[in-house]
């Protein structure tokens, strides 16, 4: 497993220290270990969980640093939900150890429930409760709740607080569920398919909110099967398939690691000798397509090509770099597309 300092780390540490002044709980938490910045918020090691004879999660290990947004990505049925449900103590693992801020969720559920906020995939409410009434009830369960106005505003539910639950659209129900996961100002927020069913604008709003929540020091465990979401939000991503972690890296690292040759396409200002590029270690092939030259290779291909051309007095115009994505990484690592099992059993 690769350890790295997530981006946004400094901000997160700062947020904990600042909030510590007004919040004795946070102060205690932040002060209990000197190097708060490198504290592990989530430690999962050798987690196994089977339903009957079927292993849903098989020897999964990862750790998440405080303030990190950690993505768990994989097709439906891969074991993502089981992993997070074990992590927050909703299910007891068959074997393996789990620590959240150093606490065993099976041993001290009361404390785990105060420091975690969980948004599960499904879940409704009685039709005739109003949104505001539901939020107020859940808010009252926590010692240090968040501001209702701010959260409902950020999730576009501010004008729905007086509406009955039954009048909410699917997307609004989903956003209410995110509000409830964050209403206790959790140290660790677990969001399971948070943006499924949201329209693109609502999805972007939700992403902004998650970044905002992280800036205030919350660690986020994000279960998703949206590549775009993982690329946009996550500091690191664990790719899970059939109960195993098959890769764990930054989104960019995963994309780079798992993809094949990348391509640079450009229009040269003057004709040039192909050997100028083929002798570069990064270049594996070169071909022409009308005015365009297409170079395939590996590593920092684009930089190498443009520098070599520049040195020979050739300018590259209309440069297009075809970079690989997390989606490519997934296909390469598992041999199938992430969305093939879209309608499958969520697990």
């Amino acid at each position, binding site marked *: 497993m690769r350890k790295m300092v997530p981006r946004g780390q400094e901000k997160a540490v700062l947020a904990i220290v600042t909030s510590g002044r007004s919040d004795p*709980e946070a102060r205690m938490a932040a002060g209990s270990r000197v190097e708060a910045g490198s504290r592990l918020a989530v430690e999962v090691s050798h987690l196994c969980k089977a339903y009957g004879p079927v292993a849903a999660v098989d020897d999964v290990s990862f750790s998440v640093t405080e303030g990190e947004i950690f993505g768990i990505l994989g097709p439906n049925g891969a074991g993502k939900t089981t992993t997070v449900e074990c992590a*927050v103590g*909703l299910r007891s693992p068959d074997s393996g150890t789990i620590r959240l801020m150093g606490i065993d969720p099976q041993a*001290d559920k*009361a*404390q785990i*429930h*105060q420091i*975690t*906020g*969980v948004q*599960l995939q*499904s*879940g*409704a*409410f*009685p039709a*005739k*409760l109003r949104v505001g*009434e*539901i939020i*107020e*009830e*859940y808010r*009252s*369960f*926590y*010692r240090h709740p968040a501001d209702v106005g701010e959260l409902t505003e950020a999730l576009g539910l501010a004008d729905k607080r007086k509406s009955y639950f039954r009048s909410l659209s699917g997307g609004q129900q989903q956003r209410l569920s995110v509000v*409830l996961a964050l209403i*206790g100002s959790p140290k660790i927020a677990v969001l399971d398919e948070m943006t499924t069913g949201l329209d693109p604008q609502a999805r972007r709003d939700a992403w902004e909110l998650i970044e905002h929540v992280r800036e205030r020091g919350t660690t986020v465990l994000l279960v998703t099967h949206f590549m775009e979401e993982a690329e946009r939000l996550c500091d690191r991503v664990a790719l899970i398939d059939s109960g195993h972690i098959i890769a764990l890296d930054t989104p960019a690292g995963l994309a780079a690691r798992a993809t094949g040759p990348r391509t640079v396409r450009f229009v040269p200002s003057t004709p040039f000798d192909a050997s100028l590029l083929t002798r570069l270690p990064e270049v594996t092939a070169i071909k022409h397509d009308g005015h365009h030259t297409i170079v395939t290779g590996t590593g920092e291909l684009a930089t190498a090509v443009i520098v070599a051309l520049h040195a020979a007095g050739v300018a590259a115009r209309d440069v297009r770099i075809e970079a690989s994505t997390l989606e490519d990484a997934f296909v390469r690592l598992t041999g199938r597309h992430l969305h093939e099992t879209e309608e499958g059993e969520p697990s």
Partner: protein
Amino acid sequence: MTTLTATRQRAPVAGFGKMVLNEARLTWRQPAGMIAGSGIALLLLVIFGEIPVFQQTSARLGGYSAFEIYIPILMCFAIAIIAFTYLPGPLVAYRELGVLRRLSTTPAPAYWVLAAQMVVQTCLMVITLALLVTVSIVFLGVSAPRNPGALTLAIALCIAALFAIGLAIAALARTSGAARGLMAAALYPMLFFSGLYYPVQLMPAAIQDISNYSPLGAAVPAIGDSWVGQFPPAQPLIVMAAYALAFGYLATRFFRWE
């Protein structure tokens, strides 16, 4: 340190208050049970109170009038309808909707949902019973209960028995539909044995025996005896307590949160 932390991490008690408030709102916004329980009991009380033949005392009814016989029956009817309308159905629906599962991720203890339901329904029952008693005394010329302590005990045992049966149904039913079916299957025989449809005193001896061992069949004479000043015999009180314990055990043994 550990105990200190545990105390600090538990959900604030105010949270239970909020939960009770929301359960009360739901009961108020879904008034079918209130209308069926409180409303019909009160309506029948007034109608029976106005029927002249119901006022005549009868030796076959142990020296009481039909109207006096009906007061405890209507009280039990109200308790049963409220307990069965608002307890099993909503709890099973909460399980189906995922409310119980979501609650299990919060610091609120899961049993709060059951407790909140029972607090709200007990309040509704107490208000209904107080109305029935007040209307009987003030408008229908019935004398006030002579043994309020025994009356309270009999009513409390009756409520406990019916809550336990309601919770056991919520525990055993997998779906809201199944809960409604079990509820009806339990409710109508219970009402029959309470004497709602025909006075138990006029039924064959074998049916009277069965009635004595049914929850409402035990509750009605216990409430009636307390009203006229006697402390009820041990048997009906023990029958109600036994129902409360047995079904309470079933409920705790089989209740599933998911």
